[in-house]
């Protein structure tokens, strides 16, 4: 049971992570590509980290809370990096469009 839960968590996590990366290959422009990693990959990573946390708690009987910290960190930084990347892309895009005003 525990194994199955973990296995599912791991697979779901990997799935979302992969989807994020598929997104950056498949989607047509930078801004659409940005969505995948920002959301899916972050979540996927979170899922796997939690799987790990559970695994080590169960297998060693000691709390394994590191993963929570990483997850927390990813969740606060991912949107900021996305914001900054988007900001720079927007900055470059405006220039390419000859400095026209925003959307």
């Amino acid at each position: 049971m525990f194994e199955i839960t973990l296995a599912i968590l791991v697979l779901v996590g990997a799935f979302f992570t992969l989807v994020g990366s598929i997104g950056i290959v498949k989607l047509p422009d930078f801004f659409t590509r940005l969505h995948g990693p920002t959301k899916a990959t972050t979540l996927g990573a979170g899922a796997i980290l939690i799987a790990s946390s559970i695994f080590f708690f169960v297998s060693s009987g000691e709390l394994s809370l590191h993963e929570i910290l990483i997850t927390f960190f990813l969740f606060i930084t991912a949107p900021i990096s996305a914001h900054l990347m988007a900001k720079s892309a927007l900055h470059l895009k405006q220039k390419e469009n000859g400095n026209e005003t925003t959307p």
Partner: protein
Amino acid sequence: MLEFALSVAIGMIVVALFLNVYRLIAGPGMPDRILALDTLYINSIVLLILFGLYLGSTLYFEAALLIAVMGFVGTVALSKYLLRGDIIE
């Protein structure tokens, strides 16, 4: 069971890594590449955690945390470079 799931998951992450590298090389814009690098960092964390699960070792945690931190800092620096050129001013 778990081992199999881990293998599959690792496989998926490796595919993801390849996809990231594709975008990194193909571009076309710099933000695309930075995004690819950023994603690559996060995917590496996932790979590392999966590897830790696979071996049952907790020694990979600090590395994962550090990848997260450094990936972020790197992305910030590169983005700021695109914005301002001068990243520390």
